[in-house]
């Protein structure tokens, strides 16, 4: 599904350069649910950004679903992101003047689908996250948990191969966090491959595998017994 070899990335800060990723090797199989953990500055967000094609590595190999990702132009990156990846952000990043349905349908617009088809698919995914009744509400009329569910529906809309979540519960209270995690676990049960960055142990334990980063290298990579979120809800 996803294979990374000897990935390096450094940022220039003034005259010196900061080596953030120092040779990462990682491979993720289809259907996995992986938590990437680490303190701030460990490089976990940079790794997720590179996997999400929002950033480019200095060196190393990155193969997504058999497709080598290199020499990305902005245009090509946009097409790949649209086709292969679904993003879930900590701050939801919904477009505030579009209603829930329009937000969910946006990736489909960039796929060039007809409006009617977009509406249909959008409703289908909103229904899946249990918000069909809220389709015509603006984000400001939704609670945090509802917003994140809309964001998840949006990430799912384009039927991506890989779901990337950057601290998906970071802005939510514990109960809502568990609700969202329960939902993400369901998606994984249905076969979606999920990669999430988090620094919360309880959230990480709800995944099936934890990869710990420190100072740009993988310290630990182990499979765990998944804690089901449903037991807390």
């Amino acid at each position, binding site marked *: 599904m996803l294979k990374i070899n000897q990935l390096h990335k450094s940022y220039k800060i003034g005259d010196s350069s900061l080596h953030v990723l120092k040779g990462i090797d990682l491979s993720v199989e289809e259907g996995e649910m992986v938590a990437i953990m680490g303190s701030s500055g460990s490089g976990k967000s940079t790794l997720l*950004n590179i996997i*999400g094609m*929002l*950033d480019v590595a200095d060196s190393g190999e990155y193969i997504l679903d058999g497709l080598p990702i290199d020499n990305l132009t*902005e*245009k090509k990156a*946009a*097409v790949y*992101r*649209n*086709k292969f990846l679904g*993003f879930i*952000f*900590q*701050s939801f*990043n*919904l*477009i*505030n*003047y*579009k209603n829930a349905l329009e937000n969910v349908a*946006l*990736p489909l*617009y*960039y*796929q060039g689908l007809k*409006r009617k088809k977009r509406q249909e698919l959008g409703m289908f995914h909103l229904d899946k996250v249990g918000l069909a009744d809220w389709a015509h509400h603006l984000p400001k009329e939704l609670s945090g948990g509802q917003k994140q569910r809309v964001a998840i529906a*949006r990430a799912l809309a*384009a039927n991506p191969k890989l779901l990337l979540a*950057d*601290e998906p519960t*970071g802005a939510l209270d514990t109960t809502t966090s568990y609700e969202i995690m329960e939902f993400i676990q369901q998606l994984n049960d249905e076969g979606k491959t999920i990669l999430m960055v988090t620094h919360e142990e309880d959230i990480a334990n709800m995944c099936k595998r934890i990869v710990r980063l420190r100072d740009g290298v993988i310290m630990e990579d182990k499979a765990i017994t998944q804690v089901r979120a449903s037991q807390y809800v």
Partner: protein
Amino acid sequence: MFDLDLWREIFQSINKNRTRSLLSGFTIAFAILLFTILFGIANGLENTFIELFGTDAQNSIVIFPGRTTKAHKGMQSGRRIRFKNEDYDYILEEFGNNVEYITSKVNRNVEASFKGAKDSYQVRAVHPEHMYIENNIVEKGRYINNSDLENRTKVAVIGQVIDEDLFANVESIGKYINLNGIPYKVVGVFSDDEGDNEEKVIYTPITTAQRVYGNNEYIDFIHLTYNPKLSYDQAIAFGNSLTRKLKDKFDVARDDQRAIRVRNFAEGTKGVSQMMFVLNIIVLFIGSGTLIAGIMGISNIMVFIVKERTKEIGVRKALGASPRSIVSIILLESILITSIAGYVGLLIGAGVLKLVGPGLKEYFITNPGVDTGVVIGATIILIISGALAGYLPANKASKIKPIVALRNE
């Protein structure tokens, strides 16, 4: 460009910021409003001048003989100068290159009658080229031609008003009109957009008139148009040298103003067209100045919008928006605001001109208004302006990196 979804996106974005869009459009609307009104007034002034000159060829030179007022070369003052056919030939010989059309003229007032109807009119005996100088339009039949001149035929081309007055219900062409007792065959009817007075005129061949009125070669005056390729200054120089040569030919003192008078339209036209030129420059300067201010206003606001929407643009990019689609959204939004605002300005301006236009006649402004050409020009200018205003912000937007835009603060 005509992607309905794209326009839906743009309208949504404009709608979301109605006040902002309205304000940014205001300067453009005002610029175009100002431009329209100024341009309309300049147009009105020009119309007034054109009306004053009539539709006679603007490149006319008329030469009248008079009486000398100064003794010269042993001849006393008060001598009458009369042009003859040889003077017509002389002008063509000396200045042929500078002359576009030329006619000699003999004018007489006559009593004209057809059957019972009669009235007095002016007869102008002319050369065929007179038609172009006077801007006569032949409505029926034909004008005077060269064969008339050679054969000294008694033919007449009558004005539309005479046609109506004397030949009320009869076809005039082919009938004989009686001019002071001599029958002339009517061969044509003409119209002249200078009005009724110019249509109460009868044209006959110059050679016929010279035979009928005394069997001589005298000419009352000569009317010509100079070659339109001449600049105003060249035309004025031509008129001056023409005057000098004729004065020499008739042994008239060069400073004798009465003996031979030359009225050169180039002198007046030069002044008017120079004034119009300056006026148009001023209008353009003020108009484009305001427009540039408007463009900068829109550009400024669009930059701000892009900044405000950085996160949204980042999200769109993460969801698969190509840089191109981002550029078109910003660019088209800018073009749309500019065009709509511009048209509002244009409409208000045209409306104001229409409302107050008729009342401005006493201020030398006739029919102020804007024509289709200006509207088309304005459309092009507005689209270009919108594109210019949107270019910088759109470029900025396309360079937004989603990773930067989405960074959690």
